[in-house]
């Protein structure tokens, strides 16, 4: 019963948001049938559409898996955006600067991305746990710093020399290091995504650390009385959040983008938080939610071909879902 209640309370806002958005589109004179058909074609049935859905679900899924650990430990780590960018930075630096055979450099680049993401997340984690600083502000500020830092790297030290003017991107990494082509998805990436989801599930549901983390999030005081090292578990939740976001950044660099680009995906960290909550902070739910939002993103890019509905229409939908998704859903959190 409890699970049903939770599932319904996550699905209901999504349905309500779809209805509200549909009403808005209908009132402003758009052909709902055309839009719906366009969304379905762009996300699922069209040529290459589902591949595109998977491409956009990939970073959402990875960041959301990280956010899951943070939320389970009741830590509001909204720094996924920055952790992903810094992860991408670590990855691209290795891919561009370290000589060696591809079979060695590629895993090294991915691991460096994960490491950079982890460190970028541990910084607010330590400041929060050691000094009690507010983690929402810390991670929000670190997102801005990460954007500026990557903007400096892509216009300065690692600027693509082939592009004149104010290019904000690094050169392309070597083709041999790429995990996918320009369409963004490949079987190799897909398999790694499945492995990442399984690993996240194992850590969360089948290890002592994962289960204790949830205990800490739900009843911190009780956990302390039980002699659980709360600070250590919270710190692990930060590390895991950064690890998965860093992996997302690395996959973006070696996968679809092939380079580090400034401002390529400006709100993905936020969408990933919504994905986590719609997915009830559980791995299977997060997979479904990531596919839903990935599909919407794919549809946004496809829609202009078949309908005159602006892509901002689907941003509205995402906003409404976010506004409603925690409504009446009892996840108490923060006051000032």
């Amino acid at each position: 019963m409890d699970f049903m209640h939770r599932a319904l309370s996550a699905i209901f806002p999504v349905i309500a948001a779809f209805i509200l958005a549909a009403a808005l589109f209908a009132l402003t004179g758009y052909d709902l049938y055309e839009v719906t058909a366009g969304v379905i074609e762009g996300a699922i049935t069209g040529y290459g559409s589902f591949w595109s859905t998977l491409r956009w679900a990939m970073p959402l899924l990875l960041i959301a898996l990280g956010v899951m650990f943070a939320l389970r430990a009741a830590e509001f780590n909204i720094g996924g955006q920055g952790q992903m960018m810094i992860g991408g930075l670590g990855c691209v630096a290795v891919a561009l600067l370290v000589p060696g055979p591809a079979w060695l450099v590629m895993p090294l680049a991915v691991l460096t991305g994960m490491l950079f993401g982890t460190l970028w997340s541990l910084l607010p984690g330590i400041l929060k746990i050691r000094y009690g600083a507010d983690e929402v502000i810390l991670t929000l500020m670190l997102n801005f710093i990460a954007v500026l830092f990557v903007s400096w790297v892509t216009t300065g030290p690692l600027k693509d020399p082939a592009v004149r003017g104010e290019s904000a991107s690094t050169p392309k990494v070597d083709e041999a290091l790429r995990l996918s082509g320009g369409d963004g998805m490949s079987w190799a990436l897909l398999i790694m995504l499945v492995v990442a989801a399984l690993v996240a599930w194992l850590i969360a549901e089948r290890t002592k650390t994962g289960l204790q983390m949830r205990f800490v999030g739900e009843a911190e005081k009780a956990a302390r009385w039980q002699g659980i090292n709360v600070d250590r578990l919270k710190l692990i939740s930060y590390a895991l959040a950064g690890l998965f976001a860093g992996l997302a950044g690395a996959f973006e660099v070696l996968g679809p983008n092939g380079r580090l680009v400034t401002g390529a995906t400006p709100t993905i960290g936020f969408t990933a938080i919504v994905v986590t909550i719609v997915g009830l902070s559980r791995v299977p739910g997060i997979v479904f939610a990531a596919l839903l939002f990935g599909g919407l993103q794919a549809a946004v890019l496809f829609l202009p071909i078949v309908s005159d509905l602006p892509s901002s229409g689907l941003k509205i939908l995402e906003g409404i879902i976010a506004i409603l998704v925690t409504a009446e859903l009892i996840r108490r959190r923060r006051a000032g």
Partner: protein
Amino acid sequence: MDFLDQFTITTLRASTPIILAAVAGLFSIRAGIFHLGIEGLMLAGAFAAVAAGTASGSVWIGLLVAIAVCLILSVLYWVVIDRLKADAVIAGLGLTALCVGGTAFAMQVIFGRRGQMGSEVRLPRPVTGPQEGILGYVSELTIITWATPILILLAWIVLRRSRLGLQIAAVGDYPYGAEASGVNQSMVRLKALLITGFGCAIAGTQLAVGDVAGFSENMTNGRGFFALAAVLFGGFSAVYTALAGLFFGFADAFGIAMQLFDQSGLPTQFVLMAPFVLTIIIVTISGAVKKKRGTS
């Protein structure tokens, strides 16, 4: 205009919307609501001011419609977080996303424009100062920039010297104590949110029809979040919050000046980072102090 004039005017231009949004946001944060929707409210205000101003031909109608839109959105946000008990952070980010999408959508539906649109009206610049010399910049300032110090003073009076200000602080610091002494928490939060919405509308109006005379998608570009940082930086005082907002504007102007007259080779990105780094330091210090006192 010489360099110093240019620098002063850029600082004041860049900081006015941030100061207004920050001082407005102070009310919500003081009431215990970490209002990440400020960014979206500013954007909605900016669009409403351009849209209604252009449609009616009057900048004042633009301002009024901007205020109306932001107040309605604030009530909506209040319903969701207070009545429906939604998470204020998530719903606030959602509100911002809704406004980013909604303004772009409305611009296309109403005006058939993508990306950006110009404004037919602009805010008046009431003071025609000397065209040259050290005060040459004053004739560039809009009426909202001139009104900003008065609004800051008003905010300070309301927060420090009025019943509502005390209630807001009580609800933020000791919600149960406030409730026990007969303060209606919900209503106080609503009032705080409405004040925030009001200020964001003015901030958005200044942004869109003050200096640039036009609206472009996502033109707030993080200013709402800077405003929140200014609130924390300002340690819950209206005056210090405004000074922190001024500092953000200064950093912005400094960044632009660096780009124009780059001598040292210090990248502008690092100059722009300074306020964020400082915010992190301040938040950490204030957290540590609270922790030591055992109140956190």
